[in-house]
């Protein structure tokens, strides 16, 4: 059985990890904040539908951006290919949703 206690982690790296973790917690707080705003907008019914829908969508995209770039480390180096693939998938996704959403019933 491997002896875990003897494996060391470079202390400079430990500090970097800690800083990174701080950014993650801030991201989390922001995500909660955006979620709250979204729910409040709908819950109070204070915004007109024409404004609410795009605003909600933008809040979602920003929140997803935090999830991808911070929680999933898309901002770090060596993530070029994953970014390309996710954006490619997003493009195909947008086309699919546009097609199904717009030209199905008209």
């Amino acid at each position, binding site marked *: 059985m491997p002896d875990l206690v003897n494996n060391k982690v470079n202390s400079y790296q430990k500090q970097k990890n800690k800083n990174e973790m701080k950014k993650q917690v801030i991201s989390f707080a922001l995500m909660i904040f955006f979620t709250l705003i979204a729910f409040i907008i709908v819950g109070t019914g204070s915004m007109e539908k024409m404004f609410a829908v795009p605003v909600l969508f933008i809040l979602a995209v920003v929140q997803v951006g935090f999830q991808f770039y911070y929680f999933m480390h898309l901002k770090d180096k060596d993530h070029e290919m994953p970014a390309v693939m996710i954006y490619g998938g997003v493009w*195909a996704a947008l086309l699919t949703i546009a097609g199904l959403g717009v*030209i*199905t*019933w008209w």
Partner: protein
Amino acid sequence: MSTTATQKRSIGAVLWDYMTTIDHKKIAHLYLIGGGFFFILGGLEAVVIRIQLIKPDNDFISAGLYNQMITMHGTTMIFLAAMPIILALMNAVLPLQIGARDVAFPFLNSLGFWLFMFGGILLNCSWFLGGAPDGGWTSYASFALTSPGHGIDFYVMGLQIAGAGTLMGGINFLVTVINMRAPGMTYMRMPLFTWASFITSVLILFAFPALTVALFLLMFDRMFGSAFFDVTMGGNSVIWQHLFWIFGHPEVYILILPVFGLFSDLFSTFSKKRLFGYTAMVFATMLIAFLGFMVWAHHMFTVGLGPVANSIFAIGTMAIAVPTGIKIFNWLLTMWGGNIKITAAMLWALGFIPSFTIGGMTGVMLGSAVADYQYHDTYFVVAHFHYVIVGGTVFGVFAGLHYWWPKMFGRILHEGLGKWTFWLFFIGFHLTFFIQHFLGLMGMPRRYWVFLEGQELDLGNWISTMGAFLMSVGVIMFLINVIITIKSPKAPADPWDGRTLEWAISSPPKFYNFKQLPLIRGLDPLWIEKTEGNGKIPPAEPLDDVHMPNNTFLPFLMSLGFFVAGFGFIYQTDHKLMLLPLYIGMAFALGCMAVRSFKDDLGYYIKKEDLEREAD
């Protein structure tokens, strides 16, 4: 694992090796055998169709059986013949072209193959179990919902299982190309076949999920009473068409792009000249793939999407002709001034150029939404897509098999017989399908089991059928070629005076491909060494232990589990007892997944000392 390659093994040992292999070269053989078998099946279905249409008001087969025949011909040829054979070539060659010892996920590679095999078998079991699917290979929702019997259910489950396999293959090749290129092999030094396979894998990644969803929705509607396509409950059958073609159009680019890459390699090798406009070729391929996602509704021009939507898609469709045209010109310019060698492979490539161009041209004609109102659902469309698929993909497959047979099997296919095959098939192909353009323009609808007397369609259909017979003779000749080649002399490492890395190692390669990973000095690495070096690729690392993965029976078992569950899904609407194979099959498959995950499988090492003893 023995490193002495000359042991004689029993048939049983060879079979077990193939059933448990995770070696990309052996998986390539498996894909070729599976795909080849289904190609024959699809071809027989085509011959039956053509016999039914040899004369007006024929009754060789019934209308219902005819519908099954056209459905299975299309579905089999696209999903079970063309795609697997392309995957065979990609498996056989891609790792060798980039200097890798295997693909990124060997276990997944094997799983992908067995899922395809079982999916294909499941689909074809329908012939014996009440009738094959009969809704066309496109299985449009309105008819597909009510088609009696279980044919369409077999279609749904068979393609779902086989499609999962293809998706795995796509991801596998993507990761392999990104992470496992040999030192010095930058992206812009990869051969075009590798580039094309890479871009094709991106298409697979993004197109197959749409088909997955479409099949799930159809399955839910047929088996579980949901209302996606049921108009009475508020559903909409156009949703199926959108989802199917969002998959379907990229799918046809999946069929053609790898052979485009292959032809680039072929033209350059057999003209003894580097590819003209390498960078443009790479970007043209990317552009075709990108645009390929934006044109799906050109299959739906007559559905009633309206003039704005139709125009957008029409323009996109015509735009794809531009990068494709760039590629055709670049191939011609590669040959111009080159030292051309007409081998069987080169013949197929030369035959491809005019044939595919005609197909592409009729594609642009079909892309005009207005004109398409006349062409849609006639034989004009049938002629178009056979010109691009047969004139493109099938010609490419034959070319690739001739070209890479030595690398895959250590023998060279008989050239004379190969050239005969080409001419018979080529002439038969044009006889069958050229005339169909005119049959379509004269108004002959597609997917009709008969045409009538006095419509002046008799001669055209008769000629078309004769062409099909000629193609069959060509295919039989190819099979004979394969069989007699078993006994032909062993092939050298580099029978064609090649330019790319796969020709630097023996034919067939050792099971570990490269003793030492090669160092790449530029595009067409082997040619560089031949002209500027000593004809051998320099190694990039010292000789050391080589890490290889273990064989495993789990992929076969897992696919078997899904296969059994498939039957369960299909028949559980008839008796509740069929929930048993459904749950047992799924549990078994998931159990295999768990077994795989819980064991540590670290592979094994070939010792340096054993490698030193091996001949180069």
